[in-house]
């Protein structure tokens, strides 16, 4: 079964952005960002695009599916 893998934490570390700051920028709670980074939540297309826009990258670069 395919699992969602994200480079969100890596991009946040690169830009020095905190989870709370990112959450507020894209209009979600910090819990949502935490779950996204742990792979416990599949974001909506809009949320994925908003996050990609913040980091100046693409959705495909940030999120991918990997087979177990």
């Amino acid at each position, binding site marked *: 079964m395919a699992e969602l893998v994200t480079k969100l934490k890596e991009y946040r*570390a690169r830009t020095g952005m*905190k*989870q*709370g700051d990112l959450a*507020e920028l894209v*209009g*979600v*709670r*910090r*819990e*949502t960002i*935490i*779950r996204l980074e742990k792979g416990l*939540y599949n974001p*909506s297309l809009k*949320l994925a695009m908003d996050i990609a826009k913040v980091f100046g990258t693409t959705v495909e670069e940030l999120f991918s599916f990997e087979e177990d």
Partner: protein
Amino acid sequence: MENTRITQLTKAAKDKSLSRSERKEAARQLAWEKYRADKRPPMSFKKSTLYNGILSLTVALLFAYMGLAEQFDFKQSGINLTIFPFFLAAELAALAFSVRQTTKYKAEPSDDLANSNMDHAGMISYAVVIIIVSLLLLVLNTVHNSDRFSMSYSGLLFIFVSFSSLQSALQKFIFLYIERGGDVDAEEDE
């Protein structure tokens, strides 16, 4: 600039020429814009949900007691003078605390994940309330040894409000259980 954006989103949220989903999205963005513009210290959605859950629970207990008092005529006994003020004080204290927190802090708006978990919690809470009501009716049927039960209109109203508040409280506590884990208030692990 913030006010311009807020004004634009406020108009968009009420604009009937837009589709329902567009108005809903504008309303969602408006809530977050207002949250960002608000200078008060933040209160997480989970915390505000907890406080509202406690308030709903105190309302449920108060109205349950009022319904029972109406049904079993507590007014003539000393029970009403000792227990009723306790429930009333608890409810007023919870209300005062909730109002204080709402004015002192800015409440974090919900998001898709919170709405999804709250809906899930709502379904579970309705099932629990139905089970409770069914069990109560079974107990009453057994105790009274009769298939008939009479209640005054005011007693019925109190019980209805009590169960509505109980469902609301349960929904919030189940939501908090679903979202358990991860101390969000702790420092971020960079």
